[in-house]
Each structure stands twice: as C-alpha cells, then as structure tokens.
C-alpha cells in the first residue's frame, strides 16, 4: 500500500482510523506452538502480518556435528514431533544413501507401513486442531480418539507414543510383535466409516465452508516460488509428490505400490467419488482445499498401509539390523528429501570419513509453508488469520529446529 500522506491530490479519508499493532502469540492459544505474529490492523482488516520465529530454536544442526549418525535419531524425532517416524525415515535414508546400504525387502515394507501410519496420525491432529481454530471443539476429540489407537500400535512396537526413534540407519530397532498386524487391520477397518463423520462434521459443514472457502488463496506459481510443499502445494493444484517424483533412492521405497497423488485435476480429486464434492465458493489454493487434500491423503495412506501389510507378510528375512554406533561414513555428501505429512523434509549430510558427520543441514517444510503468511494474510480479517495458519498445519519444532 503506497503511502499517500504527502500527496495533496489524494482526498484524505474522512474517518481517520489509526492502525493498531497487535501481537498474536507467542503464547496465543491458536498459533500452533510458540509462533509470534505481529499484526498491523486497521479495525478488523489485517494490513500486515509478520511472523517471528525462533522461540523453539535448539540448533539441532550444530548438535549433529558432535553426535554419531546413530545417536542423532532422537533429535530427528523432536523436529516434527507429530510425525517422528517420517523424520527418522528421512535421516536413515540419507545415511544409507551415503553408505549405499540397501535395507532388506521386509525392512522396506515395514518402513512404508510405519511412515504412512504416522501420516494418518499427523493428518488427524491437523484436522482436529483446525476445527479448534475455527471454534468447533468436537472434531478435536474425535481425531484424538482415532490417533490414540495408532499410538497404541506404535507403543507396542517401539515403546514410545510420540518420539519413537524406531527407524534407524540400517533398518529398525525391532521387528513387529506377532498379532500386531491383526490389530492394525482391525484399526484400518474401523477407521473408514469414521472418516465419514469428519466430512459431515467439517468438510461439508456450511459454517466451515464459509470460514475457509476463498480464504488465504495461494496461487500455484506463488506456492512453488515460496518453496511450499505437501498438502499446501497440492492444495494449490501443483501435481508434485516426492513419493513419485522425488529422489530415486526415496521413490525406490514405493516402487511397487499403487496409489494416486491427491491433487485437483480438471475440477475433481482422484478419490472424491464417495466424499463431499468441492463447494462452489472454494477457489483452488484456499484453506478449504488444503484441508480437503489432507483428508483425502488419510484415505490414500490407509490403502498404502494395507498394501504394505500384505507385502510385509509376503517378504522373508529380517527387517534390517541397525548400523553400529561407530560405523564410519565415507568421505562425501548426500542430500535427500522425503514426503513428510507437512511437505518435503530434506536432510543434507557432509561426512569426512569418521562416524561423526562434518555438517548436518535440515530443510524444514513448515519453514517454507509459514513464509507465505505475510503474502496470504494481507487484507483478511483478524478472525481469518488463525484459519489460514491452521490450514498451513505448521509445527514449530520443525521450523525452529
């Protein structure tokens, strides 16, 4: 907004409203974690929203230079603490890429199984907290009721409910306990009808549509230009999913799996036959679409987990023993991005011949997803800011590292 104060030709506003500077956060109930948003508002209209981050900065990259690759796994858990399995997977794959160490067939399917289950849990949290941001409390409890079942499954395998440290370079800390697959089967069968509830409760709810459709519209070019990824990118109609288009070392994990990338092509989504249609007010790239992509990805992940279970049962051998603590890393560097629930999670590893890496760099998806805030929130109402930030589904642990 070019300032017109000095320009005499401009007719000054009759009703002079002075701008108000408001701090939303860092301990605001609706910004997910410790994010501080400085809003300059004119009445209810937000003229400028600048996010301030760094409140949860632990400098995980510096720590990476003092720990062996095996010891760094617990740190990756605490970056995106809602999808710790995917973080472990990313770090394990980049170390194996540097070592050119292939994990046995059974271990590969186990990793897909765990990663997709954690994606379901993470998207459930995203759906629940988004309902909270918009004021309806009930979806949050439904989401956590389902998520508890997934956490029970994880707890049975690796003993932890949030920071699993289960997938490690070389394989996994332990194989599945017997009877686990049947429990997982029972959970998946029970999840399908429950997804209907979430759709009636939120996606096709008139009030929800009025609060999200057309809010925080992000065009495809801007989405790519700001480096956004995951549901935020696909919500803007960009057909880019690392499980299919990513680094060959990562796409090799999903090579024999059948799935479609959830993105809107010529007006409708691949899986939306039996789910509510796109409402009229929804513009491609708005908060509603980002939410809808996440809901359909849960269904996609359910199918992937079923395929992974079949292949896991068919595969022989063990699931890959973790590498030794003092396993030396060859001189060289490797970069690998994986499709985490929130987007592209990149790990860059520079090694100089001994077990402790020379440099560790972590590319966070929410970091880029959050950078579009000032672009998207300009001109919307104060009540829309949590709606937009909620649709980006950011986790501060991953942004601040």
């Amino acid at each position, binding site marked *: 907004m070019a300032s017109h104060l000095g320009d005499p030709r401009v007719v000054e506003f009759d009703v002079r409203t002075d701008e108000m500077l*408001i701090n939303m956060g860092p301990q605001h109930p609706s910004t997910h974690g410790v994010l501080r948003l400085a809003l300059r508002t004119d009445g209810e209209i937000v003229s400028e929203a600048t996010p301030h981050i760094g409140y949860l900065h632990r400098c995980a990259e510096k720590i990476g230079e003092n720990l062996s690759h095996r010891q760094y796994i617990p740190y990756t858990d605490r970056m995106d603490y809602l999808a710790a399995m995917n973080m472990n997977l990313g770090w394990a794959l980049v170390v194996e890429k540097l070592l050119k160490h292939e994990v046995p067939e059974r271990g590969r399917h186990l990793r897909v199984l765990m990663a997709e289950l954690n994606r379901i849990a993470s998207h459930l949290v995203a759906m629940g907290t988004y309902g909270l941001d918009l004021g309806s*409390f009930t979806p949050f409890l439904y989401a956590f009721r389902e998520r508890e079942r997934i956490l029970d499954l994880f707890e049975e395998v690796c003993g932890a409910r949030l920071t699993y440290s289960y997938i490690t370079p070389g394989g996994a800390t332990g194989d599945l306990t017997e009877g686990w697959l049947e429990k997982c089967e029972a959970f998946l069968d029970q999840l399908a009808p429950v997804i209907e509830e979430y759709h009636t409760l939120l996606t096709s709810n008139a*009030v929800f549509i009025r609060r999200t459709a057309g809010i925080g519209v992000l065009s495809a070019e801007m989405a790519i230009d700001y480096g956004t990824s995951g549901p935020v990118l696909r919500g803007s109609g960009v057909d880019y999913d690392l499980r299919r288009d990513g680094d060959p070392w990562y796409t090799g994990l999903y090579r024999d799996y059948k799935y479609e990338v959830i993105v809107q092509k010529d007006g409708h989504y691949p899986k939306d036959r039996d789910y509510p249609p796109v409402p009229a007010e929804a513009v491609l790239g708005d908060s509603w679409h980002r939410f809808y992509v996440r809901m359909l990805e849960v269904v996609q992940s359910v199918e992937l987990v079923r395929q992974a279970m079949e292949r896991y049962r068919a595969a022989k051998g063990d699931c890959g023993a973790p590498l030794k603590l003092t396993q030396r890393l060859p001189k060289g560097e490797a970069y690998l991005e994986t499709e985490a629930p929130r987007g592209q999670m990149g790990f860059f590893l520079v090694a100089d011949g001994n077990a402790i890496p020379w440099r560790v760099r972590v590319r966070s998806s929410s970091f880029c997803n959050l950078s579009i805030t000032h672009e998207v929130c300009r001109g919307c109402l*104060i*009540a829309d800011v949590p709606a937009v930030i909620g649709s980006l589904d950011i986790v501060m642990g991953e942004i601040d590292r």
Partner: protein
Amino acid sequence: MAELINLQILNRLLGWAGVDLPPSHLAGAVLAALVHGVILLGIVAVAAMFFIWAERKVAGRIQDRLGPTRVGGRFGWLQALADGIKLLSKEDVRPREADALLFRCAPYVSFAASFTAYLALPFSDGWVAQHINSAVFFILAVLGLEVFGVILAGYASGSKWSLFGAMRESAQVVSYEVPLGLCVVVPVFICGTMNLVTIGNMQTGWLTNWLVFHDPFTFAVFWVYFTCAIASVNRAPFDLAEAESELVAGFHTEYSGMRWCYFFMAEYGSMLLVSGLATILFFGGWHGPVPVFDMLGWSSMGGVLQYVAELAGAANFLIKAVVGVTVMIWVRWTLPRLRIDQVMTTCLKYCTPLAAVCFLGALGWQTGMFGLAAGPLWSPNQLMAVKQRGEYRESWVLKAEAAAAAEGSAAQAGRPAASGDRDEPDVSGETEPARSSATGAVGSPLSRKGGVG
C-alpha cells in the same frame, strides 16, 4: 394496587400462617416483593446450575466421552456446585489499568438485566411474578440491556483484546434485536395481545393448537426466531465476543472468580429466558400435547386440583424450555464459529428479510389475504380448538365485564354511577358498542372492518 402484585402465592402462604396483612401495607408489599424475588432468583440460579451440568454432560455425549461422573453420585450431578464453590474461592483479580468502578459494576449490570426479564415470564396459567400487560415488549426491552454489561466489561478491563470482544458483541446484539423483534410480533398479532399469560391460554387444547402450527409462515418464523435468539444470547456459532481462538477470551479475559461466575449465570439465565419465550409464543407454553387436565376439568375446579393442574403446566413449560436449551448446547458443540462480518450478513441479509417475509405472510394469513377472504384462512389451530381465538379475554377485561354485568343488573339503564370502580378505564364507557368494540378490538383489531361505532 392489590392486583399489581400477583398475590395468589402470598395469600396462600399468609392464609396458612393465619396473619392478615393487606398488600397495600408497607410490610405486606415488601414481603410480597421478597417472596417473588426469592422464587425467581431460585429458579434462575438452579436453572443455571442445572445447565452447567447439562452442558458438560451433553458435550461429553456428543464428543464420545462421559462428562463428569465422579463429583457427587454416579452422574456427577454435583459438578455444578463444585464449580460454584471453586469460583467462590477463586481470588477476584482486577488488572491495574482497569477502571475500578466499571470493572466491578459490569457483571452485576449483565446479570441484573438477564434476571429482571423473568419478572414477566409466566411459568403456568397465572404463575407469573408480575402480570404485565405488554409482557413480550418488556422482555425484549430488558434483554437489550444485557449488552451493557458486556460493553462495560470489555472496555473497563483495559486490554486491547477485550475491547475487540466488546465492540463485536455490542454490534452483534444490537443488530440482532431487529429480526428478533420482527419474529416476536407474529405470534403477538395472531393472538392480538402482548400479554404472555393470554397468549399461553389461547393455545389450550390439543397439540394442533400450538401457534407454531398456525400457518407455514409462523413455522418458518419460529426457526428464524431461534437463530436470532442464539445470536442475541451470544452462543455458538455466533459467540464472537469470547472467540477463544482469536481474542483469547473476549470481554471476560480479565475476570475471574465470582465476577466471572455472574457473566456465566447471565448467559445461562438469558438462554433459559429466550427458550422459555419461544415455548410460550410458539409451543403452547404450559399446555401439554394432550389437554389431560382440561378433559378432567381440573384446571377450572379451583383449590388443590387446579393447583396440581397448574403444577403440571409448569412442568410442561420447563420441559419444553430445557429442550430448547439442550438444542442450543447441541448446536454449540457441533458447529464452528462464524466470522464477525458473516454474523452481520446473516442478520441483515438472511434473518431480517426472512422475518419480514414471514411477517407479511402470517399477516396475510391472519387477515384472510388482507380482506379478500372472509376471515383468517384455515389453520390447523381450528381443528380441535377449545374456544375460537376471538373469545379469549384478558383478565382485566373479564373483571371489567363482571363489574359491568353486576352494575347492569343492579342499576337501571343510562350512565352507571361512577362508583368506586375507579379502575374502570374510560374505554368501557356507558355505551354497549364501546365495550364490545374494546373487547372486539382486542380480539383481532385489524380484521374487523368498519372500525368502531
């Protein structure tokens, strides 16, 4: 002033105690006022406590969990009392830059406004604290005062966020009074009176006599009324004032302890009030679906049997009111919150025009297409009507007729002696047509053509 304070209850009490205290005496009046005040406060406080517990239980059920179960007995029904004690023991904190006087007064203004409206709300035939002739208008007027408590609270707590809450709240409540008023007028002009007791009595008889089934427009007006009621009582999805996600807790961010409890009681009080009004205006107030006590003839028997009939009527009224409040709770825990401009557009672009259209429709229906048809068009109310709507009389008219009849028989023709019956308004003067016009006019003024003789 004998009739002004409805003394049925007091006479019964004093009768048992054997004391004869004429209400015009100072002590009599104060005692009567106290009795009414305590009964009403009791009803509102107990209702608020019950709704606190009901909200937790219903919310629990909706969210697939149990709600409170441990406090006091199996169903945790003492939870509300525990909350009350907790709030009492909490310290009443006041922020430093808060405006001391206004900060303290705001909760009491809000609670007083919400409580005074119960003065005119009848719980059963004749069971009303103050038999006000324009009761509906009185309730709407007092309901509008509650917004003051919120504005002062938002302003006096000094923080930017509560100021936002106060501004949104006042804009919303003031603008929702318009459609609310429009919707309330429909049952009023169908019954031809604003006296809630008479409106309730006009719906005696079977289920079909309830005004909500009077005609399709009144049915639609009920739903518009219910939406506006939810908005004017500030419940989700219109609870902008305390939109937790954006404004932390809106206007009562800085309040804690007993002061916060007053706001809470005010909210639940006006929730019960608004759904009680809906019950009387649309759902036949204290009349059950099947007129059991009319068939038995108890309701006009007098004495204990009439008391039992009225008690059943009060139970009917409370059940319907509680159903209305439960629906409000149910709506709160399912729908997300609307934005302030969407709340305003629903009011100005949806509720007000819809209420206006239904108003015109019902008016046309009631006046037989503005005079084209003979009288009011057919409506389910005529199916099993106990008495035609025109034959109901307000209590003061009955008294006037009784007095006139007594004089008619005693005195000869001509101008009746201006005896002690000074209450007689000059309306019911000596000429017969005048009185019938007064009473006729009461029935449905608009429908009588040719005006008064």
